[in-house]
């Protein structure tokens, strides 16, 4: 059945015809009811889950649009205010933006037993739900750095940058926080741990670290040896790349753990469809599929060797509004831009 459906879904892949902001569009299913999903998640990673959902809901035609987080935020904001082409479901890794949208009354309220079972850090107001578990990790090139040399914590990374500047110069990468809402969120999360963050920025500045875009590209470049170390990369993308040359480290001092936030826009045309997708995503079946895609990482100490006290879940809470504060952003950008040689060309 699945084997049959995958080619079918592939046949239905349509070229993007909408605005330039969206990166890719795929359709799943052929039902009479349209369901528009906008997400920052790569289609390649989420595909098995969406196919399973389409199979279970033959009445739906799911249009899955992949967006950059900032573009998606701007578009959702406009859609909320003007009612112009709202999606039926939005989920993004830039959860501070989703919290902002919910705070601005842009979300539709929904509750079911599955949602009530979520821990409080993974839901807010019954309007925003965390559907994945993804750590922010350090990745390194296994061929150039062996396991002993690889930094297992931020302190080790700081030491490495101090002691071996020549080796690492221009070969440490992280997200460009201006281009990536997720990168900004991780940088904001780090900035709350004030001392380490300041030292890190200084260290990055000293070795001319590169701020660039997009998980897949960063991981690819690490695998190719262009970068030796990439800091604060979303673990799910690494797991998905499954490249033997890439090693993954959950920083032992603390590891930020993100849960992609899912929201049903207030003026969604098919909010019921959005609710069905949410129920499905939180169901054990979908969570298993997401785990296989690396989107639900097992964070228990036995699996990761990470002490529970080192896990920093980014909670879906109004406190995340601070991350969206214009002054705060401006300040973080100032600090960042002073330190980084932003790589614009890809």
């Amino acid at each position, binding site marked *: 059945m699945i084997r049959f459906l995958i080619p079918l879904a592939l046949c239905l892949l349509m070229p993007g015809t909408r605005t330039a902001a969206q990166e890719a569009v795929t359709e799943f299913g052929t039902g009479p009811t349209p369901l528009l999903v906008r997400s920052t998640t790569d289609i390649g990673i989420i595909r098995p889950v969406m196919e399973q959902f389409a199979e279970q809901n033959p009445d739906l035609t799911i249009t899955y649009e992949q967006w950059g987080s900032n573009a998606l935020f701007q578009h959702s904001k406009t859609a909320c205010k003007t009612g112009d082409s709202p999606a039926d479901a939005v989920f993004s890794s830039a959860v501070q933006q989703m919290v902002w949208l919910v705070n*601005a009354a842009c979300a539709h309220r929904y509750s079911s037993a599955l949602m009530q079972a979520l821990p409080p850090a993974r839901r807010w*107001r019954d309007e925003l739900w965390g559907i994945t578990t993804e750590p922010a990790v350090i990745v390194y090139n296994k061929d150039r750095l062996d396991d002993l040399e690889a930094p297992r914590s931020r302190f080790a990374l700081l030491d490495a940058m101090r002691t071996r500047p020549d080796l690492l110069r221009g070969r440490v990468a992280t997200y460009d926080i201006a281009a990536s809402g997720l990168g900004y969120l991780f940088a904001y999360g780090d900035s709350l741990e004030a001392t380490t963050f300041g030292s890190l920025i200084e260290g990055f500045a000293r070795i001319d670290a590169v701020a660039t875009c997009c998980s897949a590209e960063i991981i690819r470049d690490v695998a190719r040896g262009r970068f030796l170390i990439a800091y604060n990369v979303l673990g799910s993308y690494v797991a998905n790349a499954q490249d033997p040359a890439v090693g993954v480290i959950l920083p032992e001092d603390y590891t930020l753990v993100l849960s992609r936030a899912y929201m049903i826009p207030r003026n969604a045309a098919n909010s019921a469809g959005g609710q069905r997708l949410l129920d499905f995503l939180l169901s054990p079946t979908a969570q298993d599929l997401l785990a296989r895609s690396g989107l639900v990482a097992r964070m228990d100490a036995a699996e990761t060797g990470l002490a529970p006290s080192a896990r920093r879940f980014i909670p879906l*809470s*109004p*406190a995340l509004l*601070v991350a969206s504060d214009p002054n705060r952003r401006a300040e973080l950008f100032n600090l960042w831009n002073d330190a980084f040689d932003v790589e614009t060309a890809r």
Partner: protein
Amino acid sequence: MFRPPLPHSLTARVLSAVVLILVLGGVLVGLSIWANGRLAARQAYDRLLLGAASDIAESVRIQEGQPIVDLPVSAFELLAQAPDDRIYYAVRGPDGRFITGLDPDTVIAPPQPVSQSAQYFAADLNGEPARFVRLPRLFAERDFSGEVEIVVGQTLLARRAMTAGLMLDALLPMAVAGALLLIMSWFVTRSALRPLEAMSDDLIRRDPYDLTPVASDGLPRELQVMIAAMNRFMGRLDRQVLSMRNLIADTAHQLRTPVAAIRVQAEIAQADPDSPAGRRALDRLLNRTRSLGTLLDQLLSRAMVIHRIDSAPRLPVDLREVALEALEQSDHEVIAPGVEVHLKIGEDPVWVRGDAFSLGEATKNLLGNALRHGKAPVSIGASLVGGQAVLWVRDSGPGPETSVSARLGDRFNRNAGSGEDSSGLGLSIVKSTAEAFDGTVEMTRTDDGFRVSLNFPAATEGPGA
């Protein structure tokens, strides 16, 4: 289909009153608890708002002549104490210039005039009711001088939840207490009404012809009143039944002898109408029938008096009028021709409460006795003597023998001197009347005659007063 409502039981009435009181009380207390809870929640969360606003105000600094906000996470963690509430914040410089905030497009204007201290106000936040605080901070730096305004707001979910929680915490024990009170009042009502039920059972079991008093020992005072009234009523019924029985028995007994005598006289007269014996028999026949008439009058009068004593209402009666009427109606010319009767009454009325008819009958009997058995001159009068209303009849004779006056009022105490035209019922009527109206019969023997008086407690007021 229409069904007539069942009569309410006392228990149901008392209980519904208790329920009504409890519900009313509950509503009042509930309202007060709600108001208190709302106030408590408002104060608690207003403090959070103010705390957050103060945190933000503290974080404003002047950098190159411009105010910059280094937004503290702690402020938002304070606000996140209301975890599900939406937040608004904005920091504006002089002239309302936007420094930082959630959304430059959402403007929440505080009510005018603005004060120089923290100021709370209510407004809608994205279509949801919310509460805000406005906190100004004044700067007087070299390169920046003026007021920075911090507005922080929050929707009301947590406040409502807290109000509801406080209310529930207070109302639940109250509801339990109410239920307990209800159960207790049921038991109390049942136990209070148990004597009534016992009495009802007693009455139901009672033989309908049993007119003896109902026992009221150990019953509550309220019921004793009722039972006393009932016993009085039954006593009257009993007395009336008894007097009826007496009347019939008396009538039968009294009529047998005269009727037999009349028959004998009539037979004699019939046997030889023209003989002197026959004529004498006719005379006797006439006398006998006349005295039979008197007897019937008295029997009826006594029955009437006894009936009225129990049933006629007590009204103010002027004893002077009673005396006057007795004098006018009395056929003393027939009983004792030539005897003069004097009426001695004063100017002032002599009020008693009683039944005019019974008093009149009693007086007529006294006057009749005086005329029949006493000596002229006879006088009748009424007067007030020291709080006693007295109606008296006096004659100049020696009065009856002591043995007669001692047995006064017994039915048919006819003695040898009574004669065949007397039944002995007269004084019985007098005595019954006196007793019925709380009076006494007094007989006084003086040198110049014999006086019988009826003494009653004087009524203070006449009719219509």
